[in-house]
């Protein structure tokens, strides 16, 4: 089937619109992914907070807590985990925030945050799992 000149123009324009929409949706998706990645959950109303390490990372990943809050780290990955403050591998930023050894997959590790500040952390065994705990009033 032959396509006339004006039809070609309409099809071309339609195609362009679809491409722009797809790119837009992709960008929006990327944007929302990024937002959730850097989004902070305000948990200052809780005295105890749980963070779970799953295959897609720490959940919640970034939290705000009050000084004195106890954070408990667990995993459902079926392998050991090792929460610790940055930097990897020395954990020097907040050296007490470090389980110091692997925590078995069916065990948890808790830490009471007393120092105010923004503490980036990671899993020492798989350093690509990362998050942030902000301790503030």
């Amino acid at each position, binding site marked *: 089937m032959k396509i006339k000149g004006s039809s070609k123009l309409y099809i071309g324009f339609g195609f362009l619109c679809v491409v722009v929409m797809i*790119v*837009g*949706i992709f960008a929006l998706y990327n*944007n929302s992914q990024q937002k959730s990645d850097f989004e902070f959950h305000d948990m200052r109303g809780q005295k105890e907070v749980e963070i779970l390490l799953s295959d897609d990372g720490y959940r919640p990943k970034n939290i705000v807590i009050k000084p004195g809050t106890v954070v408990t780290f667990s995993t459902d990955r079926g*392998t050991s985990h090792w929460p610790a403050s940055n930097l990897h*591998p020395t954990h020097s930023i907040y050296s007490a925030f470090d389980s110091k050894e692997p925590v078995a997959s069916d065990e948890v590790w808790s830490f009471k945050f007393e120092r105010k500040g923004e503490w980036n952390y990671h899993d020492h065994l*798989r*350093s*690509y799992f*990362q998050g942030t705990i902000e301790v503030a009033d």
Partner: protein
Amino acid sequence: MAVAIFISQQKSVPLSEAFSNCESYPKRSDAILDCWYQVLHEYHNAGGVAAAFVAFDYLYENKVYFAETGCHLHAHRIGDFAFFDSFLIHHDLDKLSFPEGSQVCGYGFYHGFIEHLIQDNPSPQYVREVCDYMDKRLSGMMPLIRITCFHGSGHGFALAEVDEGDITIWGDYEKIINVPLQLCGELQAEESEISECYEGVFNVLVSWMETGEYGLSYNYQDPFWICVNQHTEYKWPCYYEVGQKLDFASQYSVKNAVAIVSQISDEGYDQRLLQLAVGNFLQSRNSATAHIEYLSDCFEIEDRYLPSCVQGLVAGVVEHGNPGDEQKKAVEICSHELVGGYIQRGCYEEVFGRLTKLYPKTRVTALCNQSLSESFTESCIEKGYISL
């Protein structure tokens, strides 16, 4: 609209502004490094590996402490981001971007990325598939990508071993590296590639010894003690990796490094190891003039170590040099008034050897056309990169 937002996230904020929040931290601290990493991570999430490396280059150029604290390790971190934020979402290497320039700082990005890839899949068969893939896709612009892949795999095998959480092997280096070395040996690959994998295992081991991880410790009196009784095929990989980490044992002194390596009885190892040690000094002592200061030190040691010392400096400034401008300090070394004759020839041999591992031939030719020094241009002509 969404497209505009996405693009603006990459381009609207000047890099100086993006990093300005980090200025509140002490200028030479882990805290400021950590802050810079967070910004690099944001750039990675907004614009991928290429955007992260634009920010990385900015840091290297503008923040002395970043450059001085080991650009190879910093590049590892971008490999971490790419693995978590891209690979773990798509599980498909085809969907990942590996842009030109991501090989800077001794292929640190690839060490970081591949070590996690193999940590999660510690199988020799998988390593072979990944390294064949990387080779096919990237070797045109990254000449050393294949061998880098096998090296990173050695890291990954070692990480997978301690991942098990079996603390009964802690403190016993032989138990820790036994399985990883075996897995390297099972690779259906060239001897040099298997050896590179062994080096990757020892690289991680020595790092753990330095940082005191997994119950290990570094023997400052006899750094090479773990290598002496290794099997033949593991011996050089072991010496090679320990040789790269003599910084603290030698207190960053060329003379002290000579004193350590000259104790080694294996024929010819001492000179090669001095070269490695001196090169690695520049990873964490990478000021604007360190390479020239060390060059003077090279002329104060025994003559037989002089060529290795000079070539080690060249290796160091290329491996840890200003991304995209690695040749500058290397040529400063080779064209220095102290360097002439056979020392200069060896020096330029090292320059070309290093640059051709980092960049394709076309890029090396372009560097030759920069006329950085008379002796460099002469070497370029001699090597056939440019003609009269």
